[in-house]
């Protein structure tokens, strides 16, 4: 060996090594298992539609958990999944809340399109008016209204889905009771609406709910209930997440019935059972189509009920009037006010009431629809558990696995959920998972939900669908 040989071989050896240096890890195998994702249909309510921050818009629809699932299913032989998008020039749909920062006392400033508020923003000393300019939205209202009562709700009509025949059939606001024109058979003693009225409203639900209206052919609006509508689909795989609004509508109204809405009570177990079984039999074609069914999370775990705390409310009042040590509320059918305790759950919407001075005296109590007392909260949880029992049994009877969203969200409320070193929990705004309305998830929250569906689907159908990285999906954006 001589010098030039050395000169030539060593660099060559080094280069040889360099070229082969980048290691590779095999991508995990993707298997569809015993499921067939070629035609996927999603049945559900606002959570399925992709409702976020108090509204439905294309950004939410595109990040709905069924949309996320369909993109993952596509890796395992899944077919196209039609989303009920608004036209591009109306992409903001119903409009949604925007986050204008915090007040000097740390409350979030959340405004719907066109709404104004006068507050002292954080870091400033004088109050000023902040307006959410509606011109920043491309809304999808047509200018028409749905039929006036008693034939409809008179709500503003929304532009129909840009894509006919959508596969995401989520309808914000829909309950099991309002989805099935044959569900109600007995009068609910707590909310005596005639059976015929309930079933009639379910049949004409397309004239009541503009989110159902927009995915329903115009001719069907007054005549086709949701069960019949979803029965027109012939999926090879479905997800069903129904029942939340059978307790949530009542809970978010402070356990006060809304006489204008026949579906504002808690649904009784008998009617719920009939309705839910009909929905599940219809979409699973009597248990012959594979899918997954999710149950109802404990509604009082969401930030809508946990963000406004008594101690903070008193502290805020005391900045102006140190004499205030008690918040007065009026509860249930009681005509007298009582002092609120830490066990009373103030709704997120109570914030605006407190801003007007409500709650500071027995003669100006916080109205009942802005607070859940412990008895109401317990009644709602009890009913949620009863409905979840029906959901679990019905899923089993139709041979689909249960996605235990109740257990999943209980765990998040208790322990949080850290994913790839990002910590999430059930607090408003900073928790990442819940959008500005305090009830519906953010895109990141929907990604977490999609992953939970995938986990259950993988284990039940021996599939290996990859999960998504939730951190790739937006949480609350901070101005």
């Amino acid at each position: 060996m001589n010098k030039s040989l050395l000169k030539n071989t060593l660099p060559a050896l080094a280069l040889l090594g360099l070229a082969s240096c980048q290691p590779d890890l095999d991508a995990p195998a993707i298997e569809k298992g015993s499921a067939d994702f070629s035609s996927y249909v999603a049945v559900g309510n606002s959570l399925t539609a992709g409702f976020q921050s108090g509204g439905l818009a294309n950004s939410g629809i595109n990040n709905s958990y069924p949309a996320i699932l369909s993109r993952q299913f596509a890796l395992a032989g899944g077919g196209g999944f039609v989303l009920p998008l608004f036209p591009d020039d109306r992409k903001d749909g119903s409009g949604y809340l925007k986050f204008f920062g915090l007040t000097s006392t740390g409350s979030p400033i959340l405004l719907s399109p066109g709404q104004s508020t006068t507050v002292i923003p954080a870091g400033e000393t004088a109050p000023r008016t902040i307006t959410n300019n509606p011109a920043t939205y491309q809304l999808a209202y047509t200018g028409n209204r749905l039929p006036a009562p008693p034939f409809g709700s008179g709500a503003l009509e929304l532009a129909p889905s840009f894509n006919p025949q959508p596969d995401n059939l989520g309808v914000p606001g829909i309950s099991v009771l309002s989805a099935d024109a044959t569900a109600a058979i007995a009068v609910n003693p707590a909310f005596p609406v005639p059976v015929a009225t309930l079933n009639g409203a379910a049949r004409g639900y397309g004239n009541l709910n503009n989110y159902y209206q927009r995915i329903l052919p115009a001719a069907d609006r007054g005549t086709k209930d949701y069960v019949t509508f979803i029965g027109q689909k012939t999926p090879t795989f479905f997800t069903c997440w129904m029942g939340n609004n059978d307790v949530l509508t009542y809970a978010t109204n402070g356990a006060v019935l809304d006489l204008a809405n026949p579906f504002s009570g808690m649904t009784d177990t008998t009617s719920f059972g009939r309705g839910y079984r009909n929905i599940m039999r219809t979409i699973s074609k009597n248990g012959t189509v594979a899918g997954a069914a999710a149950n109802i999370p404990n509604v009082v775990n969401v930030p809508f009920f946990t963000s406004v705390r008594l101690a903070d409310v008193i502290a805020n009042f005391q900045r102006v009037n140190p004499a205030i040590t008690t918040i007065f509320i009026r509860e249930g059918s009681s005509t007298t006010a009582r002092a609120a305790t830490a066990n009373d759950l103030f709704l997120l919407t109570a914030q605006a009431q407190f801003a007007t001075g409500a709650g500071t005296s027995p003669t100006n109590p916080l109205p009942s629809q802005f607070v859940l007392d412990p008895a109401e909260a317990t009644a709602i949880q009890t009913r949620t558990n009863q409905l979840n029992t029906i959901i679990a049994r019905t899923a089993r009877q139709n041979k689909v696995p249960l996605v235990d969203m109740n257990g999943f969200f209980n765990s998040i409320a208790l322990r949080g959920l850290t994913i790839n070193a990002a910590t999430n929990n059930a607090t408003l705004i900073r928790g990442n998972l819940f959008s500005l309305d305090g009830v519906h998830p953010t895109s990141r929250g929907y990604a977490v939900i999609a992953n939970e569906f995938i986990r259950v689907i993988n284990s039940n159908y021996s599939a290996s669908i990859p999960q998504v990285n939730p951190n790739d999906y937006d949480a609350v954006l901070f101005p």
Partner: protein
Amino acid sequence: MNLKTLLFAGGALLSGTAASAGGYQVTLAGQKNNGMGGVGVGLSLDQAAMFYNPGALAMVKERGVQLGVNATLARQAFRAENGGTQRELQNTTTTPLNFYAGFGPAEGKFRAGIAVYTPFGSKLQYADAWEGRFALTQIDLKSIYVQPTFSYAITEQLSVGAGLMILALGSVNLQRDIPAQNAEGKFASIELDGKAERKLGFNAGVFFKPSSMLSVGISYRSKIDAVVNDGDVTFTNLSNTATPAFQATKFKATLPLPATTSIGLGIMPTEKLTFGFDVNYVQWSAYRNLEFQFNAPVNGATSSTSKRYYQDAVTLRLGGQYQVTDGLTVRAGGAYDNSPVKDGYVTPETPDADRITGTIGASYKFGENFSLDFSTQFVSLKKRTVTQQELLDNNTTDRVAGTYKTQVIVPGVGLNYTF
């Protein structure tokens, strides 16, 4: 060469990659040793004995000055547990240097010298938007020891030596994203940048050469805690609304640079053939937690603790050299590193695993005083997986679940001038 000039001119270069030995150790202290699997405790090859075994320095025949430079070329693949694309490091080549000057009387019993080397370091830059971005986006950890050394031959067969290790330059730069998005949807990020305080430690060794065919050595390097007391905290892309929760401007942290005990054996069957065998025992268990103290809140907290729970680790090394001609010597060797990182505790800043290293090397002598060394190490880290369940079980969810696979190639060159 002026030592101070070298330190400051070369300061930016003097860092290792997470690659050359277990944990964030860098064992590239001598170019001849690098070609022989990193052995050296039981040998007296050249001035690099000051690092490997200061006791052997008195037995090094020549006095001289030597400078070595290495390039650590690390490549890594990462796949997150929940799927996704393969992530690859952005190329971050580092160039750890070593410098030795040994003096002493030609026939005397003692040698003195000064050594400058990089015993610990790590530099990694992860792919943009990779899954572990909220744990780490990049790290650059540097340390330079300057070590005055003295060695004395008690008898023809037995010599001892010791060095005063000065942590002359230590720095850390850690960056990660913060899971708070601004109005444009961009994640904020935090950068921690600090210099370590000057600290002292020592190394010492004994070298025994009962015959021309056999030598043994034992050496010890003490632990130095690298302490950053006045590091800078910088946030970027932080929205106004999120700012009140992120007010820190300064941080304090301590990183142990652990003690190492080594024994080595040298066998010289002929004058031209040398074999070395070393065992290193590194007391990594000193690294329990990585703690940061902040002068104001970072996401509401003024301190953070991240579990490391390292365990002591052993490295086995074997190498040999053969003098082919008067001018040319060739070398080969290998090493097996036990990772100090336990299952379930792997972090992106040290994505460590047991590693197997193969090395080759050669020297060529130009005339009486001058020679060149070449070496190349091929380091392969075993595939290392950390699962989400392990992270949950160990309460270590501040890092990412997935599989890492790293390979490193370290070519190096050394210049020797002996007198």
